[in-house]
């Protein structure tokens, strides 16, 4: 299994810690963590991770907008949006964000991330997250 490199962008330190621990234990290489959009862009440019997890509500910032910046231009990063909220609440926001998928935070794990990437690679533009009803 090829080690997946991952960047996590969230304004909650507690989440960053617990998510990093979980993903690392599950074999994902968490190469960086950030809590602001600018930091996220800088790290993404420098580290070029396979995937970047971006919180939809990034404190005062709009995670969707951060996702858009990450996925556009030269960076062309692969982004998965994450949130405590249900996907139902966010459908319209997710569209046009450039993200390849969405994961509810409590459904986060390495397999779910890998599945989203695999689906996207197979040409699924609108991937269905496995843990979402």
């Amino acid at each position, binding site marked *: 299994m090829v080690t997946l490199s991952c960047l996590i962008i969230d304004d909650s330190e507690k*989440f960053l810690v617990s998510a990093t621990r*979980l993903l690392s234990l*599950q074999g994902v290489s968490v190469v960086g963590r950030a809590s602001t959009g600018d930091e996220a862009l800088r790290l993404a440019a420098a580290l070029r991770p396979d995937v970047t997890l971006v919180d939809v509500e990034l404190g005062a910032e709009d995670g969707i907008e951060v996702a858009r910046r990450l996925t556009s231009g030269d960076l062309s990063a692969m982004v998965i949006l994450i949130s405590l*909220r249900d996907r139902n609440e966010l459908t*319209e*926001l997710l569209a046009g964000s450039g993200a390849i998928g969405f994961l509810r935070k*409590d459904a986060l794990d390495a397999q779910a991330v890998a599945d989203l990437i695999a689906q996207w690679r197979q040409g699924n533009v609108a991937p269905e997250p496995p843990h979402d009803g």
Partner: protein
Amino acid sequence: MSRQSLRTMAKTTESLNQVLREEAALRRVATLVTEVAPQAAVFEAVTVEASGLLASAQVQIARVDDPAELDKTIAQIARAAGADCAIGVPIVVDGTTWGTLVAVSTTSEPLAAGSASCLANFSQLVASAVASAQAREEPGGLAEQLGALRRIATLVAQGAEPKAVFTAVAVEAARILGVGAVSLINYDANSGTFTKIFGTHGDRSAVPDGTTWPVADCPEGALAVTTGRPARVDDWTEVPGALAVEHLAQGFGQAVAAPVIIDGSIWGCIAAYGEADQILPPGCETRLADYTNLMATAISNVKARQARDEHRGLAESQGALRRVATLVAQGAEPKAVFTAVAVEAARILGVGAVSLINYDEDTAMFTKIFGTHGERSPVPDGTTWPVADCPEGALAVTTGRPARVDDWTEVPGALAAEHLAQGFGQAVAAPVIIDGSIWGCIAAYGEADQILPPGCETRLADYTNLMATAIANAQVRDELRGLAKQQGAALRRVATLVAQQASPPTIFNAVAGEASRALGVPRVDVGRYHQGGSVILLGSSGQPGRPDDHAFSESEKYVAARVMETRRAARIDDRTTRPAPNVAAADQEEGFRSVVGAPIMVEGALWGVIVVVAGEVLHDDTETRLTDFTHLVASSISNVQARNNLIASRARIVTASDETRRRIERNLHDGIQARVLALGLGLRAVRARFPLPPEVQAGLDEVAHDLEGVLEEIRVFSQGLHPALLARSGLGPSLRALGRRSPVRVNLDVAGDARFPEPVETAVYYVVSEALANAAKHSQAAEVSVTVISDATGVRATVADDGVGGAALGGSSGLIGLVDRVEALGGRFALESPVGRGTTLSIELPLAPQPTDEQPTL
């Protein structure tokens, strides 16, 4: 039809018309004669009518005693007129020649055939008029009797002692009949006695007044009272008894007597005694009877008046005043007060009718406010006529003193004729003076045969003075009421505008318009003072689009400044009151205008000004009446401010509650939710790291499952608490998110992606959210339609389901809180839920800037 027959027919038609004209003219003159018009009037009518009938002729009446002189007189008249041709017919009165009616040709042509017969017809009418006049002038004739009646009635009306009245009756009878003495004798049927009330015998009286004697002793009277008809005694020597002897001894001769019948029963008799050598002519007893009948009414009146005067007297006047004053105190309608005044006057004076008449000095017109005439009224209440047509009133209002008209036949005009035709006679009038100026008059009209005694007009004047206060009160209150009514309506109209949330310019224009209408002035402006003393025009009654409607004129600004200085009303009435530097400029700018301004005080502070502009000097009461409108504006502003304050405070409550919900939701999200999530992720991490015994694995799975349950509960709770993503994603996405969560199928129609103020979006979101929740819980609906449309003025949202209906605002619906939220935004909330026909909930939220207490305009 042949030419010949046409000519014949035309001729026939013409002569027929001539006959008809002649008949009409004769009828007009005959009417005058039967109405006993003055002789001169009859003569004039005859000459005018006859001249009109006889082509190119002039008709005259000449007096001729001797029939032999007739031809000579006619010739003289023709010569005097320079005429070649004249026709005269004799006027014969009671078989003797009285004069001649002469037609003189005014051309050289002879007078038409038939002129003589036409004149003859008129001459008969002249003769009748002369005979009638002679009859009236004859001693003891109708005229003399009427004169006697008038004198008696005057005595009666003046409340003369009965003795004086009876004396007059007897004296007048003696004079009319030309006899030696007359007695008035009362008859008592029960005792069969006569009592001599009064006799004119003087020293020659057989018995003193008051003497009672058996009926049999007075044969002339006995006959009269037993038969009810006139009687006579020609020869007293045949009559037994002491009285007859005494009668002869005193030098009296033939006697006649007539019964006095009052109210259908025999009161007594009147007896006339000729001198010893006097022959009383055959008609004498009949004349006495006629006279007696006339007097009976007078005597009856005396009785009635005595009774009334004894029982009422002054109390009547006071009672009348009390009744009128009570009406005034009770705030009765002016019409009721005026009616009472007139009715009481008619009662007190005992006249046929009383009119209350208003006088307008400027136009010299009278207006009849109210009359007690009933069906006999010559004109309806409210009729206006020239002062000259009402001589009794004209005198009263021009002299300021009571006046009277005794003989209406002398008064020209249609009203006088109508007055007589309705059977009215003498009239008295007294001026009604209110606050030192003549308001009008009160006029009392007697019946045709009624004599208004000399004191009558004074009594009316006294009564009127008493009533003047009452009338003044009624009038003032009428004005006040009119004003109140007017302004009540004005206030309602303005208040309606305020309630409809009309724009401030609309409201101020309306106020100005209402004031302009009520005051009858062309231009009213409403302005508001701002810091630094400037005044800004907020509304005007003027025509929109006129160049001077956008700002106050120089004069208005000057008055507005004075109002601001003094905080009281100010005015410019003439150019001299304007300060010198302003005069030239302002006059050049706008010409002379009278300007009055009054302050608008809102809760004790000067807020603005209402300014009235007119081309003529504004009436003294303009300030006062304007004050009423400044109060109207002030209360409108107060109302609006109070309402705005209320809306603002409700909005603040809703905002504060929203803020709290938002904060709790954020705290949940960042706090508990994040920590529970971390716990869950940590648990997974543990499970990922160590392979665990199956029983431990099962325990951890259970904990993980519970944690997921906790997270889900928090998520649902948060969603109901605050739409956290609404501000970011807008109404459309948020409502679609609601739709996706709804267990009932939702048909969502949200036009466009327009964004609205956050409170509006929040309200729509909550209403749709609650409606969808209710639909899911209660409606058993298969589908819910959600529609949101908007324009520049507002947003309308409708949630309609096809369920069972019967929803109500109360109870557990949770809708009542939404009503508050919607109304706090100045919106409207409607719920329609007929049982069995679904539920439709709709709201309207305004988008125009909401009035708040910070906004300066209103």
